[in-house]
């Protein structure tokens, strides 16, 4: 089943990432929304995975086949991540560990977690968040980062360390976003896997606990999001008063690089809150604010989110690389090609053109990364 709320949030994530990347890579400006797109995107990847599994189960696909497809999809996205690094960031950044390699690996892990009780996934996600500062401390995180960018020697240990803890989007703690999405989907849409109508679930659970009522009302993600954001705020506020061991090695303030505990908790909370609200206002009670035209736009962006993620990098980075190659300087105009006055409208123009091109292609044609993935993996 397709949920308009997920389409809307994927569109938001893509728009945020396009705007942030254009502004950062062309103008060297960090927008206030920097660091909010990737968490939402990875959270939604876990949520979409759960819905995809539910869809296959509803069609009667057996568990082994789902596992095979999940693994093929995970490896495909992982490989696309490498191809993306090589083609977009050039071969020397092959192992910078971007979001695609993380999502690819996460799909392999989610395939294992999808059959386990939710509490185990939650425990695993918490574990990955809590040991991340430890791993970063052991690896000396800052030594891998030069002028705000991840630089790695092509040695197996450094590559592995980058993959696990010090890369752009390392497994620890970023996999917790995908797991959080999976858990949210499992709890909220469990009626689909049980083959029951929503009404029967509501009626069966309505007489039970407070949590059951929250689930049936779709308010659990909202409450979870609020709790996580508040908890992160409390941690940020308390940090100056905590012992130095904790305030420097465990709670490191608000950073995306490295993704601190406060950042991870707050952004998971944000993703959960946004999903809870949109699910309630769009999927359950269609708000008048969301017209059919708007939902059509979000559906188009959502169906091609991976493709847009790759293409928008190509569109704004390749001209820089080509010009740098001509000028015999690889990073020529890097972060200083134009002012924000130009890069921002260019990002908007890209999104508009993207929308019309993708509408022209249509959702059923197997073009773009999503189409290739279905062709190869399903």
């Amino acid at each position, binding site marked *: 089943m397709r949920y308009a709320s997920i389409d809307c949030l994927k569109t938001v994530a893509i728009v945020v990432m396009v705007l942030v990347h254009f502004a950062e890579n062309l103008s060297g400006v960090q927008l206030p929304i920097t660091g909010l797109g990737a968490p939402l995107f990875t959270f939604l990847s876990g949520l979409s995975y759960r819905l995809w599994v539910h869809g296959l189960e509803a069609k009667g696909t057996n568990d082994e086949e789902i596992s095979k497809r999940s693994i093929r999809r995970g490896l495909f996205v992982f490989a696309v991540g490498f191809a993306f690094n090589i083609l977009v960031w050039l071969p020397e950044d092959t192992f910078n560990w971007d979001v695609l390699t993380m999502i690819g690996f996460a799909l392999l892990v989610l395939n294992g977690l999808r*059959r*386990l*009780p939710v509490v185990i996934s939650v425990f695993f996600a918490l*574990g990955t968040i809590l040991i991340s500062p430890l*791993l970063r401390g052991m690896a000396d995180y800052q*030594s891998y980062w030069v002028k705000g960018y991840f630089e790695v020697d092509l040695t197996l240990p450094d590559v592995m*360390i980058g993959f696990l803890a010090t890369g752009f989007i390392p497994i620890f703690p970023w996999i917790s976003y995908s797991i959080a999405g999976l858990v949210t989907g499992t709890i909220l849409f469990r009626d689909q896997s049980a083959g029951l109508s929503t009404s*029967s679930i509501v009626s069966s659970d309505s007489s039970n606990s407070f949590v059951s009522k929250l689930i049936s009302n779709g308010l659990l993600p909202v409450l979870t999001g609020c709790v996580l954001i508040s908890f992160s705020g409390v941690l940020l506020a308390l940090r100056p008063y905590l012992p130095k061991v904790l305030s420097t090695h465990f709670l490191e303030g608000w950073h995306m690089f490295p993704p601190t505990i406060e950042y991870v908790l707050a952004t998971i909370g944000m993703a959960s809150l946004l999903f809870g609200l949109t699910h309630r206002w769009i999927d359950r009670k269609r708000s008048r604010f969301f017209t059919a035209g708007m939902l059509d736009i979000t559906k188009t962006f959502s169906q091609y989110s991976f493709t847009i993620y790759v293409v928008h990098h190509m569109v704004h980075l390749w001209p820089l690389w080509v010009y740098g190659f001509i000028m015999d300087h690889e990073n020529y105009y890097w972060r200083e090609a134009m002012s924000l006055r130009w890069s921002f409208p260019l990002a908007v123009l890209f999104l508009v053109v993207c929308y019309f091109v993708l509408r022209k292609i249509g959702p059923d044609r197997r073009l773009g990364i999503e189409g290739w993935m279905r062709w190869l993996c399903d």
Partner: protein
Amino acid sequence: MWLPGSPRTFLTPFRHQLIFTAMLEPSSQESRPLPNGIPAGSELLPVVFTEDRNKGHRLLHTLPKEFHTFAVVGHSGRSVEGDRSGNPTQQIEFLTVPSASYQASELQDIVGVWVDASTTSKTPRQMMTLQGAEIHWNETRFAILAPPERLEALRTALIETCWFDAELARLERELASAWPEMHQDMPLAFNFDEKSLPRRKELQRRFERVTSIRSRLLRMSPYVYCPHIYPPTLASQLAERYRERTRLLHRHEIIDSQLEVFERVYDNCGQRISDFVQSRTGHILEWIIIILLVLQMVIWGFEILTSLEPTTVAQ
């Protein structure tokens, strides 16, 4: 002990549990207009079976105490009432016509037309004659033609027996509607897994419903299977004939055998759920230990990785 002139029930082996109230004089508010051509002394009463006895209602008969049900005279304007569990209660109309000769064909025609005029009944009219009494009935209307002195006894006998008939029909309907659900639940009697966990409450409710049906069925058994009363009375014979005509015994047996299938499925479901929930708790603990070990191994492996070669800071 039965004393002449005192209230008496004719139907069950548990006579002492029954209260037969001889308050059968109609009040102007309760009795309904009689059909045209019906002789004087006739009475038309809307009878309702209810679990909550309202003092405003006139009590006609108290069913055996395990059923907690009373037959009362319903109000004319209120055709259907609800019982304690919220189930709608069917109202049955009883027309008692004093008749020395039931073979009066004109009278037969009138009561026949009256019974047929029922808009709520889904069954055709049936007829039975017994020792000077004649009964016409369908699902919602009973017309009794009998000598005046026997009318009350016959009506009471029919009230109780038709309640058993209606109750059995209700069980049949409940079971009939539960078959698709049972077929849906059948795989869970063999295998219960994580995905089925949200259905636990629903299965529990269905198990309870099946148990409830079994309980109601068993409570009726002594009355459905009760042997012929000796010495026989007209009322007791009428009730026996009615039980035969409505095939209460066979229907009871069929429901009993159908329930066995339901019980087998839901017993096994309950067993599977219990086993699964118990093993799940153990598995969760095992998985938590495994995750802790994995995280420990990650840290351990990471320590080896970081100690293999000093990190070179890129220039």
